[in-house]
């Protein structure tokens, strides 16, 4: 049980970071972004591309691998790259759609197409087989109650740190406050002199950077696959919904809870021999939440039906 709890924290921190990103984007733009998983995978794939040794054949494009083995620098560049990518998506796809007053449902379907498109671009040009970052194997050690490798422990701490930073950012910086203002009411924000286009662009960039970071976490803990984002996308939705769609704090807690629920449910008596179905528990919880408390645990009550 304790061991599962540790695994749950690790999965939870991945989902949590990704859920915050999804939730920010939804809050500000009202887009349910099904391509979120692909930005997660992009973070991992770009990190692998920058950090893999030149002579390895892990990537289609590896022969140009510019950074060799400098892992932390690769992470930095990968996150920047994801942010740029998110900005490009906003500038060349979603902003024109918004200006053309394309409806939310149409945009949702567009993100599904985008997800399918990007995911298989990765399959074709980046990584057909599961890959790992070029890091040495580590032995598990005990931290408080949990057994995990030192690297995974650092991922956990880094994830928690990022959460704190996001919280501070949203509450105490000017642009964070502006984001929350646009989230609460686009019109009121515009009236008070906030340029909502810039805020939305900034949201896309920061959401994509966070998603990329979540992908790097996931790849460090598990491995890199072309569909790694799609595989946990529904869990991310579950985390976002559980905490309350559009609330950042809720998404953090919701994501952590979903990760823990998924991993701990393996240890439940009725799940014995059914470990493959562990995600079903989290998804069922998400459906129940949507039915009975669509505003989530921390969301403010509004008429959503």
């Amino acid at each position: 049980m304790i061991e599962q709890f540790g695994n749950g924290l690790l999965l939870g921190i991945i989902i949590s970071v990704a859920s915050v990103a999804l939730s920010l984007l939804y809050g500000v733009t009202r887009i349910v972004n099904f391509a979120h998983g692909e930005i997660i995978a992009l973070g991992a794939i770009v990190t692998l591309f920058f950090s893999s040794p030149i002579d390895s054949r892990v990537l289609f494009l590896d022969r140009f691998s510019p950074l060799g083995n400098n892992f932390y620098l690769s992470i930095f560049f990968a996150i920047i790259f994801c942010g740029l990518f998110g900005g490009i998506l906003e500038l060349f796809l979603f902003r024109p759609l918004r200006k053309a007053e394309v409806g939310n449902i149409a945009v949702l379907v567009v993100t599904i197409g985008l997800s399918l498109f990007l995911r298989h671009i990765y399959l074709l040009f980046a990584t057909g087989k599961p890959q790992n970052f070029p890091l040495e194997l580590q032995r598990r050690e005990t931290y408080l109650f949990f057994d995990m490798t030192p690297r995974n422990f650092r991922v956990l701490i880094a994830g928690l740190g990022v959460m704190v930073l996001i919280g501070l950012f949203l509450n105490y910086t000017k642009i964070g406050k502006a984001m929350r203002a646009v989230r609460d009411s686009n019109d009121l924000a515009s009236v008070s002199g906030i340029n909502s286009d810039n805020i939305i662009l900034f949201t896309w960039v920061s959401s994509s950077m966070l998603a990329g970071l979540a992908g790097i976490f996931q790849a460090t803990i598990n491995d890199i696959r072309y569909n790694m984002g799609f595989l946990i996308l529904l869990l991310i939705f579950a985390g976002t919904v559980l905490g309350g769609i559009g609330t950042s704090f809720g998404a953090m807690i919701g994501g952590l809870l979903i990760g823990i629920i998924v991993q701990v449910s393996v240890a439940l008596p009725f799940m014995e021999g059914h470990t493959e179905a562990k995600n079903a528990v989290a998804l069922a919880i998400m459906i129940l939440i949507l039915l009975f408390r669509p505003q989530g645990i921390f969301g403010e009550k509004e008429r959503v039906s």
Partner: protein
Amino acid sequence: MKISMRGSITVLLTIFSISLVFLLNDEGEIRILFNLLTFAGIYGLAAIGLNVHFGLTGLLNFGHAAFMGLGAYVTILLIPHAAGREGEVVTTGLPFFIAVIIGVVSAALFGLLLGLPAIRLRGDYLAIVTIAAAEIFRLLVRDLESVTGGVYGIINFSNSLQQYRLGFIENFSSAYDLNPAQIWVAFLSWTSIFIVLLLLKRLTRSPWGRALKAVREDEDAVRALGKNAVWLKLQSFMLGAGIAGLSGVFLAFNYGTVQVSTFVPILTFYVWAIMILGGVGSLTGPIFGSIMFWVIISETNGIAELIFENADGQQIAGVRFVLVGLLIMILMIFRPSGLMGKKEELLLDVK
């Protein structure tokens, strides 16, 4: 009968895309054509079901694969089959036509079960719930290996249907050197499309159909007029789910086996692409959309060969999905009404 401009352009485009099959292939054109027409029939039927949900009623269903899968699994488990790693044989079972009715009804009931609570949700929430329900269905099918055969799947069930094969199917197949089992499935699915379309045509012009469209346009107005909007939506959800269940049965019999991997999210996205291409809200649109879609799919080998030398299976599949994704995006951005749909009848915004 009045033939619209849009309709004739669509028919011409469909004929053109079929002729592409003959232009682009040097041998076995007839076989390729009938293979793609089989899939076009099956997926077209599924797209018609989805169109009842989205086109007629405005319900955002992303769990179509689960309805198809449920129809298929229930039907197959009721007829003689062999399941699992060991191929455990079940020799007794119901006749095919009774089993398929139960299968279709259970798909519709699954629609009711899922819709009963979920139908009240806002559009984008319903999308998340249905895609999650489909994932739960997939995980359960994989988990309940003793019944569904899990990843090993179910085999040896085709005979229940193939024993009814009509004589002219045999003659036709042997004349063109085709697989009679597949032609029989194709014949049945296209016949079903014909019947379902006749049925839907009557339904959509009935007061019931007009009430459904009214639900899509303005639910509050429907309520104010004393109609039960939730129950109307549920009926539409069940009808579409039942049609999907039937198409799932044909899909299973076309493959001759079912596994977990038969009914995956990608199947739902295929059906969505077909529906959008054909025209959201148009009854006959999905047929033409489906044929064109499968022409594109069946020619992806050639496209993959342009990009990669000696493209392998994974690369061909990758190119195929990239194309489907692009198709969905481009259509939704530039022509959300597809070939046959009416733009003013589209539900594109969350209510």
